[in-house]
Every structure is written in C-alpha cells, then in structure tokens.
C-alpha cells in the first residue's frame, strides 16, 4: 500500500524518541558500559612503524606478568584466502580484512595491530602489551597518493597487480584498480566548447570522529558458542565478519547490538571483535576491548584523501558540453577506496552529453579507509563544484543559474548507466534561488558560496517484526542499530499504518539470534528499507486483525475495513457492528486464533537518489587566514520526512562535519610515516563555537518506491560544504583555495601570494 498522498496523522510529526530518556539520564548501554562476571581486559599492541616486516614476536616476558591470561598474535588466526565478496558497505576482501584486524607477515601502517593481551585489569593488559617484544625489519614507506603511484614507490603488496588496465601488468603496483566511466565523445565535446576551465584539487583523509571509541565484550564458551556485545552499524555484519575471520558457524555467534555512539560509516568494519573472541577462547573468560582515542585515529579507517583533476567545457550560454575528471584516491594499506562511487557522483548532478571519468584506487602506508557519509562523493564534488564556480565566473554567469541550466532531471542518463527517475534536484535549486539567504544582500567583507551534492541512497535487506501485545499496545523490533533516532521513525510508520497513537508503539533493536538478517545501518537505508519492512509487517498485522474481526462478526474479511485503530464493517451491507478496536481484538486474540504479529523481511530496491544545495556566507580575517562561517543554509530533497527533527538533525550534522573537513580536519604525518595528531586536541573537529545555526530546508519530492515516499537523507549533507565554503572564500578574498583543509596557515599564505 502507498500512503504518499493520504492524510497522515503520525508521520511528519515530532514525537519524543522512545530511547530518549535513557540517553539523557546516562542509562543507555553502549558496549563500553557492558560488564561480565570474571571479565578480562584486552589490549592491542600496535606497530610503531609505517611499513615493516615482522621478523619475530616474543611474548614470553608479557606472559610471565602476573594477571596476564592470554596473548594472541596473527598466528592464532586462520590465514584467510584471497576472496572478495560484497558484505557490508562495499566489496570486501576477507584476506585483507583479516590482515587489517591483526598483521601476519608485514605491518602496513603505524597503528597496525600485531598482538593482543588479556589480563585481569586494563593497567596490567597495557603493561603486558608493552612487554611483547616484536622484531621488525623496517621497510621504506609511502604516505602520499601520487608518490605511491610512482614507478619507484615502495610496494605494499608484492601480489597486487593493477586491475582494469590492458595489457595485464607484469609487475606489482600500489595502484589496485583503474576504473573509467565514459559517455558520448569527450574530445568532440571539448572541441565544441566555447569556454573551458581546468582545475586540480586535493583533499585530506578525514576521520568520522564518532565520539564513542570502538569497544566490545566477547564471551566464548567451551562448546564453541560465542556472545558479543558491540557498538556497530550492523550486528549482523559483525556476526558475518567474525564467523568468516575465525572460521565459525554463524549460528554459534550471537551479537547483541549495544547502543552505538556514532559511526558515519566508520563502524561498518570490524577491528577488535575477532581479537576479543580469540582472547576469550584462549583464556576461557569474557574479554572486553576498548580502544583509546589514539588507537581510533591510528588504527581505524578515515575516508580517502585524494587528488581530483576536473576539466569542464561549456557553450557561451552556459550549456556544459564536456566534463572530465581524474580521481586518485588513497585506499590506505589495503585496496578498496570509494573511488567507484566517487567517479559516479561528481557529474551525476548534471545533464552533460560528453563525460569521461578516470579513477585510481591506490594503497599507501595509512590505515585502511572506511566508509564515511556518501563515500567518495564529497571528494569528487569538492573538485566539480569548485570548478563550476570558476566556470560560471569565466562565463560571466551566476553560479546558481549555471547549475540550474545544467541540472539533471528525470530522464537524464548518467555517465555510469542509470537514468534519473523521480529526482528532486530542480525543485531543490528552485527553493535555493528563492531562499532569503540567497536573495539577501551580502554583508560588507563577507563572501557567499553555493554548492550541490548527490547520493544514490541504497536499499537492501532488512527485517522488522510487529507484535500486538495482549493489551493492544505494540512492540516493534528491527535489526537496524539506531544511530540517529530510527526507533522513533520505525514506530511512527507502524503507528500510522495501525492508526494508533505513536506512544502505544515501542521499538527495540533485536540481536542476531532474535530477528531475520538485516544489512548495516548505513548508506541512508534504514528509514527506507527497514521502514519498508516495518510498514509491510504492520500491514500484515492489519490484515490479520481484519480476519479476527470478521470471525467475531461472522462476516467475510473483505467486508471489514481498518481505520483509526479499529475494525469497522465496510459499508452498511456488511452489517451493523460496533467497531472493534485494537485493545479489544488483542484481548480476544487467543480465542480468534492466537497472538497477532508479523515478521517481514525485504530486499528493498529503488531507493530514491538524494540531492542537496548548500549556501554559505563566510568572513575572512585576512591577517590570520581565519575563516568564520557567518550563515549556513542546507536545502535537500528528503522524499518524505518521517520525523522532521531527526531529518534536520542529519542535515545539520552532515553539514557541520563538512565544515570541519573544509577548514581544519587533516592527518599530519612525520617523515617516519607516523601520525602526529591522533587526538581531538590536534585533529580539529568543529566545536559549538565554530559554527552558526545550520538552517535545514526540507524539500519533499516523494520517492514512489517507498510506502511513505522516503528517500535517504544522511549522506547528501556532507557532499556540498567543502566547495560551498571554498566558493564563499573566493567571494570574500577573490582567492581560489583548491586544497583542503583551507586552514589559517594555508589561507594566509595564499593571501600573501596573491599580494
């Protein structure tokens, strides 16, 4: 059933989230808050070297320390064969994953795990880890992406040959993969252009910087069964990966979804869980591992840093006739950067006849990258949206008009294949053009910038159950960890379908043994896919309730209609009966056939793509290069906002992460390839005083593939900010900043250079 144009009572309102009180009173249990009787503390020893061969690991001193109960090294884990599969957030090579969790023959980045200890206290575990004596044969390392692509670069993987080039290479390379997307005839396109603009841009790897460090508690029983408490974006992902890496049956692994303290893509991989399980297996006791913030920065994945080359060709009237891009993405120590989506997203916003995008997936001695909000898109769009601004200037055109003129619309065929359908980009741009921020006069000394962003959004596998309790209240369970308020939106959709008040519905997150498989909370898929499952489960329940009413009234189920939380006879010829509400039917459930509930699993397709436009005003202290964000407006097509507050929250949060990416966040390495800023002091995320209020403007172009018209909203907001701010800085200073972050030293240097 489709509710898009129906008159909605619950969806679109702003009820309090059901898990709210737990979270404002400190009761919510995150995995670091879990305890088990006789629990040991695990500590991981990490490589101080960026690139080295492990010659020998001597654990004898550590083992002799009183309180130490177990020690593991790479040798304690199965050597996983080179096999690629799509589990989680992208193609996953399980040998790489296994060797990222704990190194075998080589360490590939500073912070790479080499061994782990379980002891009776965290202090003892820490002391013991320091006593593990690892002999390294230090190898030359490479950090920078273009240096890693050079012929003479130190090779990370002797068995890695570039895929996607012809003829097949004969010598190993740090370039894992070359991809190319083409549309039309690029040379003809540029030949036909009146104006051509070319730019080269660089972005820094940035960490998701969720405030909760990774933590888990694992208990292995003698019979091979394992229980894990973990904070992650998918407890089924943890089960799948742990089973794979430890060669276990999934049925022997039960993962309980603790509350998750932020992920943004960074908790779609595993790091510590298999280690905790092995330590528990060896010690026979529950083992808890909790990363320090420093470990999070040194050992877990940021998104790629990259080099982005953009070339645009346009007619005098602003019609873009040719666009090409070269993308060089850091993958970290193992292949798998988001260069694929990066190559697809940059030009997906525009209707351009001739496109050529070339992308490189490049390994270097950095932590393996992990997903981060719209993986790849912010990087590619920083280049494209900056170049568009300069192209507009060259054309003497308003940057928004240039985007309007070339905006993708329904029927636009993208360079990577699909044809856009049911998209709302033109509507977003129309709202931007009329928005008081865009139309207001610019304050003296301020600069204004605009930039746009795109994300596919995804669907996939989700399961939800709806239980009608004996008193007519409703319990909903899903397999999707609630990272930003999805308990509320799930409950709201179910309440809407059942026609009851939302506070009659409570949503829980079920563990891996208690509900059907559910894919990660990521890619902005939960409200879409899990929401679809919850909606269908509620509809099944309604169908069943109608049957029960029909039984009571002795009429045909087709003669029963469900409205406002009760069964009514459909029309007068169905008979004259008092309506039976949910509570009454629940009370009689036993006599009408037993408990009323439904579980629905879906593999949702047709996630509607999302588009956004951000407008930003900045002022620049030209003596210090310090940029102040004076005003910020984010406009986005959200399909349908189930709980508008949490939709706005996604947009405000994503925009603010983008502000950090634009201005101050970066990885600083010394010449030994060691990270110099592995903490919140010098990895500078925006603080409350760095940002203004972020106005989130919700445009609702329903996605017909979802019962309520939902499209994902969490990814798009991080795509436009970097270019929007760069364009605003250009407005304020006439200086184009092509390199991120646009930090004070860089901006002051650029100002001096410009004279």
């Amino acid at each position: 059933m489709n509710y898009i144009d129906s008159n909605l009572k619950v969806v679109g309102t702003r009820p309090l989230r059901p898990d709210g009180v737990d979270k404002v009173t400190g009761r919510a249990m995150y995995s670091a808050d879990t305890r088990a009787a006789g629990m040991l503390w695990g500590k991981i020893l990490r490589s101080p070297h960026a690139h080295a061969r492990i010659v020998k690991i001597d654990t004898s001193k550590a083992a002799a320390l009183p309180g130490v109960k177990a020690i593991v090294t790479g040798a304690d884990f199965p050597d996983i064969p080179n096999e690629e599969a799509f589990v989680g957030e992208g193609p996953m090579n399980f040998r790489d994953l296994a060797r990222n969790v704990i190194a075998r023959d080589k360490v590939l980045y500073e912070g790479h795990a080499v061994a782990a200890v379980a002891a009776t206290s965290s202090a003892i575990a820490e002391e013991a880890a320091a006593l593990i004596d690892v002999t390294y044969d230090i190898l030359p390392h490479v950090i920078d992406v273009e240096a890693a692509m050079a012929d003479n670069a130190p090779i990370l993987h002797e068995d890695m040959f570039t895929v996607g080039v012809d003829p097949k290479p004969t010598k190993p390379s740090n370039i894992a993969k070359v991809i190319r997307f083409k549309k039309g005839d690029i040379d003809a396109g540029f030949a036909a252009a009146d104006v051509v603009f070319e730019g080269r841009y660089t972005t820094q790897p940035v960490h998701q910087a969720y405030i909760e460090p990774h933590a888990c508690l694992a208990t292995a029983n003698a019979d091979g069964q394992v229980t894990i408490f973990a904070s992650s974006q998918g407890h089924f992902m943890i089960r799948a990966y742990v089973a794979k890496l430890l060669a276990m049956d999934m049925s022997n692994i039960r993962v309980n979804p603790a509350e998750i303290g932020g992920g943004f893509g960074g908790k779609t991989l595993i790091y510590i869980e298999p280690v905790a399980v092995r330590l528990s297996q060896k010690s026979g006791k529950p083992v808890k591992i909790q990363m320090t913030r420093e470990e999070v920065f040194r050992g877990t994945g940021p998104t790629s840093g990259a080099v982005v080359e953009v070339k645009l060709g346009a007619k005098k009237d602003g019609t873009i006739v040719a666009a090409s891009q070269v993308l060089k993405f850091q993958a970290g120590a193992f292949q798998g950067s988001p260069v694929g989506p990066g190559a697809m997203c940059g030009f997906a916003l525009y209707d351009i006849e001739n496109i050529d995008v070339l992308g490189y997936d490049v390994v270097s001695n950095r932590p393996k990258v992990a997903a981060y909000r719209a993986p790849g898109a912010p990087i590619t769009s920083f280049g494209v949206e900056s170049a568009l601004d300069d192209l507009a200037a060259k054309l003497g055109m308003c940057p928004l008009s240039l985007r309007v003129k070339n905006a993708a619309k329904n029927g636009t065929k993208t360079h990577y294949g699909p044809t856009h359908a049911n998209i709302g980009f033109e509507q977003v741009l129309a709202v931007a053009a009329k928005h008081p921020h865009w139309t207001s006069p610019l304050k003296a000394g301020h600069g204004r910038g605009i930039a746009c962003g795109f994300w596919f959004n995804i669907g996939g596998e989700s399961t939800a159950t709806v239980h009608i309790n004996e008193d007519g209240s409703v319990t909903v369970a899903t397999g999707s960890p609630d990272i930003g308020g999805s308990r509320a939106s799930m409950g709201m959709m179910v309440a809407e379908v059942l026609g009851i008040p939302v506070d009659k519905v409570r949503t829980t997150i079920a563990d891996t043994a208690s509900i059907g498989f559910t894919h990660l909370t990521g890619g902005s898929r939960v409200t879409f896919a899990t929401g679809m499952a919850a909606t269908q489960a509620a509809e099944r329940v309604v169908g069943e309730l109608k049957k029960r009413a029909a039984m009571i009234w002795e009429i045909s189920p087709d003669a029963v209609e469900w409205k406002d939380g009760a069964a009514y006879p459909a029309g007068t010829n169905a008979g004259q009966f008092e309506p039976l509400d949910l509570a009454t039917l629940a009370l009689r459930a036993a006599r009408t056939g037993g408990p009323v509930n439904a579980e629905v699993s879906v593999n949702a397709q047709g996630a509607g793509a999302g588009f956004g436009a951000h407008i930003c005003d900045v002022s620049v202290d030209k003596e210090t290069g310090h940029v102040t964000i004076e005003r910020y407006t984010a406009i986005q097509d959200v399909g349908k906002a189930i709980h508008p507050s949490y939709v706005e929250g996604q947009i405000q949060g994503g925009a603010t992460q983008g502000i950090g990416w634009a201005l101050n966040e970066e990885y600083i390495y010394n010449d030994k390839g060691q990270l110099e800023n592995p903490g919140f002091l010098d990895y500078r995320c925006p603080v409350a005083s760095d940002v203004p209020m972020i106005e989130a403007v919700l445009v609702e172009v329903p996605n017909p593939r979802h019962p309520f018209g939902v499209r994902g909203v969490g990814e798009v907001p991080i795509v436009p900010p970097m270019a929007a701010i760069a364009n605003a800085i250009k407005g304020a200073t006439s200086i184009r900043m092509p390199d991120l972050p646009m930090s004070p030293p860089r901006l002051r240097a650029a100002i001096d250079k410009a004279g």
Partner: protein
Amino acid sequence: MPTVVLSSGSSMQALTGGQTEFEVEATTFRRLVLELEQRFPGLGKQVEEGMAVAIDGEIFQDAYGVELRPGSEIVLIPKIGGG
C-alpha cells in the same frame, strides 16, 4: 534480446576480452548471470558478488527476479554502499 553494457574500463573487461557491449539471451537477471558466466567464465560470479545493475535506468543491487524485456539495456556498475 537485452543488451549488456559493461562500465568501460571496469575490471571485468579482462574477463570479456575487452568486449564492453554485447547481447545476451535472458528474460530474468538470474538467467543473465548464468549466461554471462557461461560465456565469460568468472564474469557471472563477479557480477553477482561485486556489481549492481541498472536495468533500463533503475539500479538494482540484488535482482535475480527482475524481468528483462527484449531490448532492455542492462548496465553493470560497481555496487554502492554508503556511510
């Protein structure tokens, strides 16, 4: 007969001997995968595990059941994840 287009330069060209566009006799995506595997050993598996597919414009990540019409355009693209 549906036409299959490989996103050019994708790693799968190694398996198709450089071919980027060809017709395949298939009425469902499942059948298509089997045909591809038969024609270019390894390709079907890779399409299943590593690729999403755009059929006449719409992206499907896992789509055995999806029906293909004669003349359907099937574009194989990298699977899409997210944050």
